[in-house]
């Protein structure tokens, strides 16, 4: 069953609609990521769930109990929802131990033991418990903020871009550690981020948000391979979008006849391929003979960047594209391993792996 249910949430700031009808169900024990460009309303949504602000319309329910609707709002301090803010928001006037123990009662049994246990769980050294927040690094501050929120034993944890202040290497390891930690503690988690890779790798369920609405909600794999529109497709990664004629599970396009994930029949459609679905193999001009449906191209650009190499390939024999005049012969831009990338002027054979996705 779903732990958190949002239905029809709206929120306006003057003339600006920050949220414009949000519906979402979050399963107990799952991880959800809300991802979108900055200004799309994702932080506002998080603040409504936490109870820092009240929605104009709609309903928020946690475990069947209404937290906010037209009748009234449960204030943040009675919700029992943990929050980790972007920069940790540690209390500068308290030690780390007092920060972690902030939500506990002063006379709670074994308060000190629980604090050091929490510090241990989030991977903090016991020695820093006596220090002040400003003496800690960014990553340590985030761990303290997490421990502080976990001390409340919340059923739901909200993470507001908690990794964005960290440098790249630390970010990935923190993300993995936090995901495992919260899963181990059985805490349902919602992560807000503008980083699509972070969202895809962190969550079981991803919601792509734009202009105060969810464009699409689903598993990371579904969103990546079957985005509802070009915006979602390009937000989640590089995409090759081509015009095509679709019939009986195949598309006729610039790349010839390739399988698609839809069985309908349409004269004008757009299909999407991820660049990694296009495979290239070195050959020569002499080797270009073969069956007519084989596809060849010439490398026109090659940009080496260490592990990957960005290669631009211009098709040499495009077979009957539906509106070739409109698109011209734009090169396909692909990322290939840097160790064995073809050089400019080389001839390659192109093949397609898997199915292309047809936009609805």
């Amino acid at each position, binding site marked *: 069953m779903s732990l958190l249910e949002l239905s029809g949430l709206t929120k306006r700031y003057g003339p600006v609609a920050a949220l414009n009808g949000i519906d979402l169900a979050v399963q107990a024990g799952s991880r959800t990521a809300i991802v979108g460009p900055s200004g799309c309303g994702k932080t506002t949504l998080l603040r409504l769930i936490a109870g*820092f602000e009240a929605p104009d319309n709609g309903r928020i329910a946690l475990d069947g109990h209404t937290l906010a609707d037209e009748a009234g709002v449960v204030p943040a*301090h009675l919700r029992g929802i943990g929050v980790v803010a972007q920069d940790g928001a540690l209390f500068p006037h308290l030690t780390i131990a007092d920060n972690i123990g902030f939500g506990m009662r002063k006379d709670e049994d074994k308060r000190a033991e629980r604090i050091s246990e929490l510090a241990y769980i989030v991977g903090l050294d016991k020695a820093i418990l006596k220090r002040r927040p400003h003496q800690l690094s960014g990553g340590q501050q985030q761990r303290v903020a997490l421990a502080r929120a976990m001390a409340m034993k919340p059923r739901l944890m909200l993470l507001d871009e908690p990794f964005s202040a960290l440098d790249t290497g630390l970010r990935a390891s923190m993300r993995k550690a936090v995901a495992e930690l919260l899963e181990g503690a059985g805490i349902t988690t919602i992560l807000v981020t503008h980083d699509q890779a972070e969202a895809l790798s962190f969550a079981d369920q991803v919601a792509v948000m734009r202009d105060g609405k969810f464009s699409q909600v689903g598993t990371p794999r579904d969103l990546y391979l079957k985005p509802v529109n070009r915006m979602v497709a390009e937000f989640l990664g590089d995409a090759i979008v081509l015009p095509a004629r679709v019939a009986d599970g195949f598309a006729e396009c610039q790349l010839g006849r390739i399988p698609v994930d839809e069985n309908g029949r349409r004269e004008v459609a757009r299909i999407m391929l991820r660049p990694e679905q296009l495979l290239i193999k070195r050959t020569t001009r002499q080797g270009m003979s073969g069956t007519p449906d084989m596809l060849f191209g010439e490398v026109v650009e090659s940009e080496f960047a260490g592990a990957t190499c960005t290669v631009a390939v211009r098709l040499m024999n495009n077979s009957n594209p539906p509106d070739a005049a409109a698109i011209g012969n734009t090169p396909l831009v692909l990322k290939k391993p840097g160790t064995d990338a073809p050089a400019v002027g080389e001839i390659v054979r192109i093949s397609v792996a898997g199915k292309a996705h047809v936009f609805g």
Partner: protein
Amino acid sequence: MTSAAASGGAYRGRTLHRRRYPVRWIAACAVLVSAFALLPIVFVAVAAIQAGWSTVAALVFRPRVGDLLVNTLLLVIFAVPISALLSIALAWLTERSDLPGARLWSWLSVAPLAIPAFVHSYAWVTMVPGLHGLFAGVLISIIAYFPFLYLPLSAAMRRLDPALEDSAASLGLGPWRVFFRVVLPQLRLAICGGALLVGLHLLAEYGLYVFVRFDTFTTAIVDQFQSTFNGPAANMLAGVLVACCLALLAVEVLVRGEERYARVGSGAARPLQRARLGWLALPCSLLLAAVTCLSLGVPFWTIGRWLVAGGSEIWRLDEIGLALGQTLFLAVVGGLLATAAAIPIAWLSIRSPGRLQRMLEGCNYVVGSLPGVVVALALVTVTVRTLPFFYQTMVTILVAYALMFLPRAIISLRASIAQAPVELERAAGSLGRSPAKALWATTIRLSAPGAAAGIALVALGIMNELTATQMLAPNGTRTLAMAFWNYSGEIDYASAAPYAAIMVAVSLPLTWLLYVQSKRMAGR
């Protein structure tokens, strides 16, 4: 090879010399200014030594001093905490609630600073003639001085990171507990600084307490000075007063502690959310209206009433014009002098912080806390004994102003020098300007607005200064404050009213400047 190394060494030696050069002469100036500023303390110590222990004991350990001590303590104990509570409430209402007209109320909470404390007192006494003693002293002190607490508190409240309050709420704390456990601790520095300022003003104030017939050390010293001129009795009272000021400084250091509550983290703070007052908006507005009535309504109404009652004959324009001219002269020249004296210290504290700079800063901090009456007494003694040709001259009174208001000038200058990047000064140096010229062409030019603000604040102080002016000014000097004081001393309240009106009118724009500056320092 050898010659190359030798020439390289010589070259390095020369650059080293050139680099140290500006710091050294500026440091020398700063030490000189600070040493001079220590004069009042040295004077108190020397006076005590010269008088001998038995005289000191006889003059200090007597019931009169005990009474004064009790009076002064009671004043501080009542007026400072009540001012703090009032200021916290006002700052919260104007900065953190959705009270209608918050910006106007905020300005009205600072505006009482434009009215000299003795004019507040004059207004109250002429409106409620029976007002006197401790109650009157505490009441008028709060009304005249609470803005010194309100200013830093409202600035601190604006700066608070709202994410901390959100975090506390998500950790299960209700609004009241959030206020006491998260908001209040972060206001500690502002409360300590403001309370110290108010306390020091209470110790230094003279005119206010004379009107309500409440004796403090300062009024007693001036009485003593007027009856016996420069006797050991006045000097010893000054010694006790200095001890009180130092005690206040020590208490503040103890309470403040070593903590600095820097904002942790790097993200941009989201704008503060204002609390919804709902039906409480009405009583809260009434509180602000009541404070405004007491702090602005009473003085304006009283001054207005006396102006109307006096008619046109109280506007003796030649006399008033002379007083205004003298006051403006003293204020502007004193402001320039204090700011010029502040440049080396302010420059050092930003460009070359170190042990010397910390020592000088501490020294100026202590001296800045000394009441005008002590500074005046010291200068009277020194000029009479060793430099008689300076006694009761413009030079002495201007020096006294510079000493008394040096800290104000330093604070304004320091803030603006901090905003002029040192790289510019270095660039000017690398383009061939000598250190002094580089300083002038870059840092001093860029910090000119801050210096102007500093001059204005010092001028504001000088304009409303009464005690030291009375004791030090050359014969024939009659500033606005002195003229006001003489007339009201003769119970000619109507004739005093134009002077009060002019002082308030000139001070209002300067107070506005202070208000704008405090807003800007808070980043808005």
